[in-house]
């Protein structure tokens, strides 16, 4: 199951950090962030609760990049 979310992030390195971080969150099989389109594509692990996983992704991303935003 793949989903795409709109994000706000203002530097390319920060987008890279968000991607790295999102990939460490449980329930995320693969996350890709495109700085250019300001989108995050998340492939969820089998049976994961999307809402809950994304809340954790947002929290984790806020930690590495305090002024980022993910539209859930």
């Amino acid at each position, binding site marked *: 199951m793949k989903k795409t979310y709109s994000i706000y992030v*203002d*530097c390319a390195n920060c987008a890279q950090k968000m*991607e790295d971080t999102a990939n460490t969150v449980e329930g995320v099989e693969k996350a890709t962030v495109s*700085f250019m389109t300001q989108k995050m594509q998340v492939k969820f692990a089998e049976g994961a609760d999307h809402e809950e996983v994304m809340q954790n992704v947002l929290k984790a991303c806020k930690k590495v990049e*305090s002024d980022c935003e993910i539209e859930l």
Partner: protein
Amino acid sequence: MNKRQTKMLKRVIAATVSLVILIILERVTELPEWLFRILFLIPYLIVGYDVLIKAYKGILNRQVFDEAFLMTVATIGAMILGEYLEGVAVMLFYQIGELFQSIAVGRSRRSIASLMEIRPDYANIENEDGSLEQVDPDDLPVGTIIVVKPGERIPIDGVIVDGTSSLNTSALTGESLPKEVDSGDDVISGCVNISGLLKIRTTKEFGESTVSKILDLVENSSMKKARAENFIAKFARYYTPIVCYAALAVGILPPLALGLLGHGWDFATWVFRALTFLVISCPCALVISIPLSFFGGIGGASRNGILVKGSNYLEALADAGIIVFDKTGTLTKGVLEVTDIVPAEGMDKDELLHLAALAENYSTHPVADGIRKACSDTPDLSRITDIEEIAGHGIHAQIDGHRILAGNAKLMDRYGIPYIKNNDLGTIVYLARDDQFIGSITVSDVLKPNAAKALKAMHDNGIYKTVMLTGDAEAAASAAAKELGIDEYHAELLPADKVTMIEQLLGRKKKPTDVLCFAGDGINDAPVLSRADIGIAMGALGSDAAIEAADIVLMDDDLTKIPLAVKIARKCLRIVRENVVFAIGVKILCLILTVFGMTNMWWAVFADVGVMIIAVLNAVRTLRTEKV
């Protein structure tokens, strides 16, 4: 400029003005130095407060190697060492650079996005009283009649039930010539209706329509990252911490060593050099410019009707060495056309064609289609009184009271008619009237007019081998290969043989890094498309299977788009390499100069912000595809 940018600009201006005032005050007045130290904090805080806050939050979250942290340490360090003008100026320039970057990136993002501005927002449906209502195209079931006014974009794929018009397909194909359409024609979403009112019965849902599929594909293309992008991401992960530790080493080891050797204790100089290190260490120039280059390349390609499904494919395409073509529908038009008419003595060319068209009138064979199309006027069907198809042979018909035979050589043999053999390539239709041979017509699949030109362009652009695969007979394949200047051909292949051929060819690359592309029309060649390193689907407008299976989709049938795509890919990769070498080169140079004390913070700001701006401007060049 957006709100954030406008606010940033105001802060930059306010800080610059107050800094200038302070510098003048310092020159003309005799106020004590401690007062100036405090006063210099005003412009510093105006322009840099958010950086400080972010650095603080970063420390709380153990993200010490982020940019904000580095800038904070460097500028505060500089001010503690008494270089307060430099401290403020570095922060100011850093923010100006960030602002510029944000504007430049925003601009290029928008200009790329505008290439893809083909999403229709609404569809018109006609109410019972004849008035039009705008509705969300997503809500319409298949089979709805929608109305498209001149100037509007067709929102959903469908078939015209009423009206004639010309369509502008340039957003999809890059082709500027309008396409004439009439009722009964299939139309695809994304085209702009130019002249007349059209009523269209939808044949797909909005989400399944061409325009939605294309947008989906383009939007997701930057998710498939190129090797170069992954390399830089990894590089950045190690680079910043390494430079930070190096800075720490520069700040401590040399002064310690010099001090112990009795050259005096000079920590200030070395700490300042270490701080300069920190300013240089930001990897942003690399991290931003490379995805931007690929994004620009993909955007520029899509403006030319070339859809690239991912940065990785664009990167691979730059190494294209072998291009394999399917013949029918790719190198040829894929429809049969009359290429020669040879009437027997005493027979008129036009009359011969007319008779053939009448005889073949009810046949659904592709040969019959070709003959009917070649006939300029609609034949008078009342001339036919009886028609019978003899499977595998041809047609037996009564026309104007004469017995007409139209078919292959076997048909002539069957009726014992002496005929003049025609040795043309293609399918030959022999005709006889009342058992008298009256001539022959050659029907063949003709090569696309620009195919030879496209192949020449490929050879001129470093493609060292071109191969044609076809199920056609040896003679036809050989003639086509010769005419096009193709290096190698394989004829009489079954669909499964094509995959085997591709595998063989994959093993015959000059270098393992060379890329083999297969170009097909997407019909029946999905397995081959996916087996090749890069599958290119031609003329894929409306063909879902091809869009799914291919890595690069050419929206129209134009073969010259293949060398163009290769050129765009090469230009993009060249720019990526330039940026990598330039950015890493300048940074390393500045780092080395800094160790020897030959730089100051101004250099450092250039190495960070200046390099980034130059790299971004260079990356934006990928968008320009007129001269590649």
